[in-house]
C-alpha cells in the first residue's frame, strides 16, 4: 500500500508519521515544521534576543548537531550570531572521534569553533584520571557527577572566551523527562526546584542558558538529522552504562510505549512542580576561589576538584561537605532522611 499524501502540502508522498501527533508528513514539510517549532519556542520564550552572541555547546552528538544546524538556519531571522564551543573531557577513544566530527561541522558550516579542554582548565584532571581516582573507593564511580559539573564550568569558560552573551545546549524533551524522573528517584529536591523552566536567566554573573530543543522529542531530532543528512557522532560515552540515568531512560522508553505523549506529559509536570521554600536552593553568591556562581562558599566545581586533589574524591559528593575549608554554611545543604544522593551499588 503506497504511503499516504503529506497532510500539509498534499503534494508529495508522506515519508514519516510524526511521533507526537501521528500526522503523515513529507520530508520537506517535516523539516520546516520542526524548524518552525524551534523558532516558536525561542520567540515565545524570549530566549535569544536579537543581537545576541550565542555559544552553542557542541559535543558532536545528534542533539547539538541538530541544534547548531537549526540555529544556523534561523540566525538571520533571529538576528543572532553563533559560535561553536566544544569541550574536551579527555575520555580516550570517545572524545577524540567526537571532536573530529565537530571540526568537520564547523568547517562545513563556517562557524568559529573553540575547544576547551579539562586538562587545561582544571589542573591536569581529565575524566579518565578522575575515573581512575574514584575507582578504588568500593562504590560506584559516579563519573557523571564530575563530568556534568565540570563540563558546565568548561562551557561557561569557553563562552566567555568567545565573548558570548548566551549559552545554548541541545537538551531535548526526553532529556528533560529523564531528568525529572531521576531527580525524584534520587530525592534531589534542590534540582527539582531549579529545573523545569526553559533555562536559567543567568543570575549573578553567569551567562543565561537555554535549551531551544526542549520541546522536541528525541525521535524527531533523530529524524530531522536523518532527513537533513547531518554528519554526527553517535556512540555512547564509555562511562555511560554506570550512570543512574540509565534506569530513568529505560523507564521512559517503557512509558513512551504505553502512552506516546508520556514524554511531553513529564515535561509539563516538571514545569508545574511546586516545592516548599525550604527545599529550594539558597540564593546564589560567588565562589571564593574562582568567582563563579555558587550557592555555598565554594562552587561545586571547585569543591569537586579540591576533593580530587586531596586524594579524597568523594569529598564533595553527598551530604555535608565536612573537611572542605568553608566558612560554616549554617544550613544543612541536603534534605534530611537517609543519605540518598549516591545509589548503593548492587555488586
Amino acid at each position, binding site marked *: 500500500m503506497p504511503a499516504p499524501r503529506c*497532510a*500539509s*502540502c498534499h503534494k508529495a508522498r508522506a515519508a514519516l508519521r*510524526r511521533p*507526537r*501527533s*501521528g*500526522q503523515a*508528513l513529507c520530508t520537506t*514539510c517535516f523539516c*520546516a*515544521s520542526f524548524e*518552525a*517549532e524551534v523558532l*516558536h*519556542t525561542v520567540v*515565545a*520564550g524570549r*530566549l535569544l534576543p536579537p543581537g545576541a552572541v550565542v555559544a552553542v555547546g557542541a559535543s558532536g552528538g545528534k542533539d547539538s548537531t541538530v541544534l547548531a544546524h537549526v540555529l544556523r538556519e534561523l540566525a538571520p531571522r533571529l538576528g543572532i550570531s553563533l559560535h561553536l564551543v566544544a569541550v574536551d573531557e579527555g575520555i580516550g577513544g570517545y572524545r577524540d572521534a567526537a571532536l573530529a566530527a565537530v571540526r568537520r561541522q564547523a568547517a562545513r558550516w563556517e562557524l568559529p569553533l573553540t575547544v576547551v579542554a579539562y586538562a587545561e582548565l582544571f589542573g591536569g584532571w581529565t575524566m579518565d584520571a578522575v575515573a581512575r581516582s574514584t575507582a578504588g573507593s568500593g562504590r560506584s564511580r559516579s563519573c557523571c557527577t564530575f563530568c556534568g559539573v565540570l563540563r558546565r564550568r568548561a562551557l561557561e569558560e569557553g563562552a566567555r572566551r568567545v565573548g558570548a552573551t548566551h549559552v545554548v545546549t541541545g537538551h531535548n*524533551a526526553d532529556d528533560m523527562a529523564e531528568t*525529572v*524522573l531521576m531527580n*525524584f*528517584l534520587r*530525592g534531589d*529536591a534542590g534540582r527539582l526546584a531549579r529545573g*523545569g523552566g*526553559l533555562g536559567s536567566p543567568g543570575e549573578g554573573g553567569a551567562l543565561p542558558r537555554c535549551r531551544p530543543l526542549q*520541546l522536541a522529542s528525541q525521535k524527531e531530532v533523530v529524524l530531522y538529522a536523518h532527513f537533513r543528512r547531518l554528519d554526527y557522532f553517535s556512540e555512547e560515552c564509555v562511562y555511560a552504562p554506570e550512570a543512574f540515568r540509565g*534506569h530513568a531512560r529505560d*523507564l521512559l522508553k*517503557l*512509558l513512551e*510505549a*504505553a*502512552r*506516546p*505523549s*508520556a514524554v*511531553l*506529559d*513529564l*515535561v*509539563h*509536570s*516538571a*514545569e*508545574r*512542580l*511546586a*516545592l*516548599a521554600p525550604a*527545599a529550594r536552593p539558597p540564593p546564589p553568591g560567588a565562589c571564593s576561589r574562582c568567582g563563579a556562581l555558587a550557592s555555598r562558599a565554594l562552587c561545586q566545581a571547585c569543591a569537586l576538584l579540591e576533593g580530587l586533589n586531596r586524594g579524597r574524591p568523594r569529598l564533595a559528593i553527598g551530604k555535608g561537605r565536612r573537611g572542605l575549608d568553608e566558612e560554616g554554611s549554617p544550613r544543612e545543604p541536603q*534534605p*534530611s*532522611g*537517609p543519605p*540518598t544522593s549516591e545509589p*548503593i551499588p*548492587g555488586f
Partner: protein
Amino acid sequence: MLWQVLEGLSQDSAKRLRFVPGVVFADEGAACGQSPEDRAKTLAEAKLVLQTVGFPWHIVALEEVFSLPPSVLRCSAREPVGTEGAYKAAVDSFLQQHHVLGEEKQSRPCPQHPQGRAGPPTAGQTEALSRLFNSVKTLTAKEELLQTLRTHLILHVARTHGYSKVMTGDSCTRLAVKLMTSLALGRGAFLAWDTGFSDERHGDVVVVRPMREHTLKEVAFYNRLFAVPSVFTPAVDTKAPEKASIHRLMEAFILRLQAQFPSTVSTVYRTSEKLVKAPRDGCAAGTPGPRCLLCMCVLDVDTADSATAFGAQTSSQLPQTQPPVAEAEAPTVSCCHSGMGRAQHCCRMEADPRACDPRACVTAQLCYGCRVNMKDLVSGGPSPAREQAGAGLGLRLRSPGTSGSSLLQPSLDPLPPYILAEAQLRSQRAEAEQEIQERLLEAEDGARPGATSAEQAHEDGARPGATSAEQEGADGL
C-alpha cells in the same frame, strides 16, 4: 487501617482517637468484568469483615455513579477552621456527648443493614457501566477513570451521611508509586494533593491518608501477625501484562529499583513531603482559576501557543500551511470562545448551544492530566481527523455543527450523566458571564454597535435555557 482505627477507639488504648467512624466498601465488580456470582461472593466476604469490625458500614456499587447529582463536582464551602481553643472545646463537647450516649450505644446493636441504598444495582446500570469501561481503549485511562468515579462516589456517600473526613489506606509504597505515576500522567502540579496527607480540594470533605508512613511490607506483616482478615478482589488491571498501563509499569519499575537500591521508596516519599499545594512561582497568584471538572484541581493549562509542553502539543496540531493562529487568549472555559474572533460566535449561530462540539466543551474544562485521559476515552489511538475535531479547535473553516454529525466524532454518551450535566452548566455559566462582561464594556464606550445588536438578536432567539442561566449569572454578579 480499619484494625488500627478499631484499636485506637477501644477503651484501653493509651491515646484514644476521638471521632465517629463509618466504613464504606465500593463494589467495582462491574468495571472489572466480574460475573454476578463472583460479585455476590465478594460482597458476602466483605460483609463478614465489616460486621466483625462493628462500625456502621455502607456498601455502594460503582453503578450508582449513574445516579449521582452534579453537585458532587462542586466544591462546597468548608466550615471555618477554628483556632486551638475551639478545637479543645469541640473535643470536650464530643466527649460529653459520647458519655451520655455511651450506655445507650452499648446496649443497642450496631446497625447491620446498609444505609440509604435501595437494593442491588439494576442490570441496566451494570450494562451502562460496562459499556463505559469497554469504550475506553487503554488500561491507563481505565484505571484513571475508575479512580475518579470511585472518588466521586465515596465523596457523595460521605456528604449524604454527614461525614467530614474520608480516610484511605494508602501505604508509603503505594503513594510512592502513585506519585511517580502522576508525574508521568502530567499531574505534576497536583502532586501535593494526590499524595499528601490531607486533600481538601473537595471543600467540605477532607481526604486524609493516615497510613502513608507504613510500607507495604509492614502492613503485610501486621496483617499476618494480628490475623487481620482481608478480602481479595480482582482489580481492573489484574493479570494484565506489565507494559499494559502506566500504573503497572511504574509499580514494577519502582519495586524492581527498590530491590537494587533499598532506599528508593523512602526517598520518593520524603521528596513528596517537600511539595506544597500552591501554583509554581511565576504563575498568576491571586484568585484561583476555574477548577477541573473531574479532579477538581485548579486548571494548570496555559495559552495554547506558549513555549511549554502544553503549548507544544496544542499548536502542533496545526497543519503547516496555516499560519499559527493564536489559539486562545486565555484558558477559556467554553469552547465557543477558543480561537474565534468575536465575529464568529460559533455557538451563538446555532440555536441550541448543545450543537457545538460537546466533547470540546468538556475537554476545555479539564486539567492537563484529565485531558490526556479523555483522549483515550472512545477515540482510541491518535488520528489527525479525530484529533482536530476533538481537540476543541473547532477549526476556523467549518462550523462545529457538521463535526457533530460526522461518524468519526467520538461521543461522550457513555459518561455518567452528572459529569455531562455539570460540564454543560459550567459552560453555559461561563458564556453568560462573558456576555455580561461584554455588555458592560460596550455600555461604557459604546463601540461596535453592530455586534451588540447581533448579540441581542441571538439572545432574543429561542434559548430559554441559556437565558435562565444568564439570569443566574447576573444575580451572582
